[in-house]
């Protein structure tokens, strides 16, 4: 009996999460290019809100952390803190070539590399910057994977965040 209740509540939670994910955006060293494209997805032409996605100011209310830019040494600590403040279950999306791998800034002395060097990442959206359509596609793919029996597993970079 309790098993059934568990199953139903789990189904209900996924349904709620997938239908209205709240997103928080953090720029950990980006050039703004990705940030304005994320903002553009929320404005009338692309209108990400039609999928129920809402941009949210506080990490404590958010389900999805959207990161842009490579991680700079100074922003690293903040990124980790924001990630830790988010309630479980949480998902991380890395937007832009920089967030994926460090991009053009790989090798700069104050840059640690992509987001996955610091926190686990569920979805990578490449492009410099990715088009708004690509960002929407990435978010939708992440959401639809949550409904499948085998949801995406987060990926952590080579040195497990100890870099």
């Amino acid at each position: 009996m309790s098993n059934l209740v568990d199953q139903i509540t789990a189904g209900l939670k996924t349904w709620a999460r997938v239908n209205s994910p709240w997103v928080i955006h953090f720029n950990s060293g980006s050039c703004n290019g990705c940030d304005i494209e994320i903002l553009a997805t929320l404005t009338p032409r692309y209108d990400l809100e039609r999928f129920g996605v809402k941009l949210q100011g506080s990490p404590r209310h958010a389900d999805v952390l959207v990161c842009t830019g490579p991680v700079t040494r100074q922003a690293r600590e903040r990124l980790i803190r924001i990630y830790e403040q988010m309630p479980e279950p949480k998902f991380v999306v890395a937007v832009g070539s920089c967030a994926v791998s460090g991009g053009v800034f790989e090798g700069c002395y104050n840059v640690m590399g992509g987001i996955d060097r610091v926190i686990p990442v569920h979805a990578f959206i490449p492009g410099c910057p990715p088009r708004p359509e690509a960002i929407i596609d990435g978010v939708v793919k992440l959401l639809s994977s949550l409904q499948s029996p085998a949801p995406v597993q987060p990926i952590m970079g080579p040195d497990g965040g100890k870099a």
Partner: protein
Amino acid sequence: MTQPIEKIETPKGERFIIPIGPQHPALKEPGHFEFTVDGETVKDATVRLGYVHRGIEKATESRNYIQNLYLLERICGICSHTHAMTYSLGVEKLAGVEAPPRAQAIRVIVAELERIHSHMLWLGVAAHEAGFDTLFMYSWRDRETVMDLLELLSGNRVNYSANVLGGVKFDITPEQAGDVLKGLDFLEGRNRHYLDVVSNDALLLGRIRGVGVMTQADAERLGAIGPTARASGVALDVRIDAPYIAYKDFQPALITETAGDLEARFKVRVREIEESIRLIRLLLEHLPEGELVARMPRRIPAGEAISRVEAPRGEAFYFIKSNGTDTPARVKVRTPTIFNMATVLSLAKGLQLADMPMILVGIDPCFSCNDRMVTVREAERAETWTWNELREHGIKVYQR
């Protein structure tokens, strides 16, 4: 008889500080502000920058001139063309090469389209901070028209990569020019509407008229530049003071306001969009014929060059030093926001806390290009330097 209300004294030496950032809904980019408040009134303000410092200037020294073009374009995603163009102008000066007239004109067309997109973006963000989300949505919807035009010309929406050393990468065909003109017609109509909104909408004026007034003397003393300074009546525009490339033949008009408040800053930027539209039309009409790229030497001769360009936010300044190899010896970038930041800190004093987002957004801040340095002692702890420490450090380093 009413009791006299007891006055509550704050203990001496105690201050109430409100920290904002580095992650905050009102900030699109990480920056950290601390406002010392007395009730609702701001008494003091400090800023801590450096969250986006990546070390680009140093990285230029280990990449060759052509690679640097793409690296420097990514200093800022909003004025990317400005950075690439300023850098190319500097390198071309070192090599003694001048871009062909057609390339110069195309550079200016892209630069002015970029100015339109940047100002419209700002208009939306500023309206959003004022709580006027309708204007935010409208201006961003219309901004997509400029993005379409930029994509039509260059193939990309943000980092257009229009420049190559010695010229530009793409041509503008007559059909494309026709499409651009059509887009501009639409934008001009919308822009007239925005000018009407920012000068007549009572609700918006309540938030911006007479708020954050900066006199001309203050603007000059604090070293403000760009539209922020022009809104206070300072006649300063690199395109006019030291015309470069096609601006020599196609002069824009200087746009200033005298009030110095937030309203004036709105008006200056909206009127600049109008001026940019006029300039692009003129250039498309008189597009010179000819080559797109001039031949550049493999090695850049040793020497030093500076180049200045009017970015959407003010003057962008590059110093490039070459030692005769294929990598630069030093590239120094000076971008506008850091100079306008001082005006935020001094204007903040005496204003309401609720006005702070508006004051900050009034300068159109761009952190990604203003974060100059950062000290990191351990892996995770970064330090803040005071102005005096920084000054002493600078003197020590450059005495050698």
